[in-house]
């Protein structure tokens, strides 16, 4: 290092201009909260990959049932229990898309040729000859719909409850917190099961059952944040200026809560998907011909030994959704949670 310094000619040095007005200049553009968060998320490769996969799955949930050219309810008993076969991929022997099934004697047979079926069922068919490709994506659509709706309702109730409880404090807070303390003592899935027994399975009743105590977690997080935020000067200023409680909550507190709300909701969605699948698996899910990922796994599990693809395909889809949503939620938490900031 020392040698290099000696080699630089003196002419290249010039005195720095000291201008006090320039010291105040901001060189980098100021980032909004969201730009900053996006920068952080973008650095997290797993989160970005998850975001893309989640996007693809949601896209498939909508266009999947359309591109197969088949209906998710039409039964064709002559075509029942066909293994998956895909054009082009059927000639690659190590891929499981060649329409070949191993029979009980351990011999491989091409069921399509045996039964003279010209059609291609990309994910195979179920016991009633319904196209599984259409059913899987239709099921994904319904599972996601239930999960998003449940997460949204959880969010609305939880935020309102937590914000009111934390903001007003005192006696109101005390009573509201005692109520949540009782609710949190109830095992989630047990109460959901009881609600389903009462309401009978259906898309709306499943959603309601999932939200019955699901909002408690959100309300606790929001309350904790509001307790901190309401002591801030800007809230005091707003109050001094005569703004109503409602306006303070909506205009000043809510924008500051967006981070925790998003993080919590992102974790609620995979939980709701899991709970729906869980209910289907113990026989409390949607009724035929409606399908969700849970009911498909349940049906597939019953014939797992004979036709493994009927369970494995929906299982892969639900696992992908769960993994990617969890990773995305982790990434968002790292990016949005003020506690995580250095």
């Amino acid at each position, binding site marked *: 290092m020392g040698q290099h310094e000696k080699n630089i000619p003196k002419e290249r040095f010039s005195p720095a201009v000291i201008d006090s007005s320039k010291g105040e200049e901001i060189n980098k553009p100021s980032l909004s909260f969201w730009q900053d968060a996006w920068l952080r998320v973008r650095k997290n490769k797993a989160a970005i990959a998850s975001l893309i996969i989640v996007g693809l799955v949601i896209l498939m949930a909508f266009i999947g049932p359309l591109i197969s050219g088949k209906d998710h309810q039409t039964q064709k008993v002559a075509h029942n229990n066909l293994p998956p076969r895909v054009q082009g991929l059927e000639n690659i022997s190590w891929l499981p898309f060649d329409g070949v099934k191993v029979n009980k004697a351990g011999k491989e047979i091409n069921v399509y040729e045996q039964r003279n079926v010209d059609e291609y069922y990309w994910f195979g068919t179920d016991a009633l000859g319904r196209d599984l490709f259409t059913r899987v994506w239709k099921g994904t659509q319904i599972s996601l719909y239930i999960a998003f709706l449940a997460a949204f309702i959880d969010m609305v109730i939880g935020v309102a409850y937590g914000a009111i409880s934390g903001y007003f404090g005192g006696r109101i807070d005390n009573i509201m917190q005692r109520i949540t303390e009782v609710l949190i*003592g109830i095992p989630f899935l047990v109460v959901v099961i009881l609600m389903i027994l009462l309401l009978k399975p259906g898309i709306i009743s499943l959603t309601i059952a999932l939200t019955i105590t699901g909002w408690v977690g959100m309300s606790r997080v929001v309350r904790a944040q509001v307790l901190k935020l309401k002591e801030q000067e800007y809230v005091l200023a707003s109050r001094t200026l005569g703004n109503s409680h409602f306006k303070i909550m909506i205009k000043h507190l809510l924008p500051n809560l967006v981070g925790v709300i998003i993080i919590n909701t992102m974790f609620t969605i995979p939980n709701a998907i899991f709970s729906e699948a869980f209910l289907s698996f113990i026989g409390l899910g949607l009724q035929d011909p409606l399908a969700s990922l849970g009911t498909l796994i349940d049906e597939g599990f019953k014939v797992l030994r004979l036709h493994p693809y009927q369970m494995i395909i929906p299982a892969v889809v639900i696992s992908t959704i769960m993994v990617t949503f969890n990773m995305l939620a982790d990434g968002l938490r790292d990016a949005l949670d003020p506690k995580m900031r250095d």
Partner: protein
Amino acid sequence: MGKYLLQRVFYMVLTLFLIASLTFFLMKVIPGTPFASQNKLSPAQMEIMKAKYGLDQPVPVQYAKYMGNLLKGDFGTSFQFSNRAVGDLMFQRLGPSAQLGFQAMVLGSVLGIFLGVIAALRQNSWIDYGSTFIAVVGKSIPSFVFAGLLQYYIGVKLGWLPVLFWKGFEYTIMPTIALALFPLAIAARFMRTEMIDVLNSDYITLAKAKGASFFDIAFKHALRNALIPVVTVLGPVFVSLMTGSLVIEKIFAIPGLGEQFVTSITLNDYPVIMGTTILYSAMFVLIILIVDILYGVIDPRIRLSGGKK
């Protein structure tokens, strides 16, 4: 401390009372009778059956009677399992469930803590990425999907382990692994972050400076403090194992409490549904209480009354 405990126990009892009442009235509202699945009964026989189970009395009377019996530890009699006492039915099935839960908890937490520690000590190595991957997957994949695939590949295809039932230790291996995945994932994740936190603290630097060996630093100094938060997370995880075991027991045909619960739902066996619900809730609230007390016992920095939480 005493006052806090008293308060907590009061809420516990209140919660349980609420759940018991809720389940009771829900069972009254649900359409259909528990006898519908039996041979068609004439109206007269139906009346006799109803009278036998006390269903002919007004609902408030039934409620008072049920709650009174509950206080005495009497959960009523089953409609389906040849009039057996629900209490007997449940406690007889508690054994397999408890064993399964215990084994899964031990396996999951020990393995998870081990994985987490190794990942933290070898940050950004392939071991670290591997353990993070296992943690994410283990947390995400639904237990019944994992159990189903495990049963198919290990049990049916490879034939290494028995597929169904509960007859000896080798029968418990697969359900234990299936159930242990979730606690393993949670423990590994938490252990890693806590361990990294602790390894960066001043007293570890001091230990390094005075020349303590790597082994001593990792296991004598760091692990002890890093374990505290992990122990507290594992409580709620244990609770989630109870519901997780519902499906695992169904898949592996284990005669446990969860299997009983699922069967009673399909059979409309109301007294059993009520009994298991109340028992589950009681265990749930009890575990939460124990965990909260443990917070204070394990870590003297956390005080029960006021302060953190």
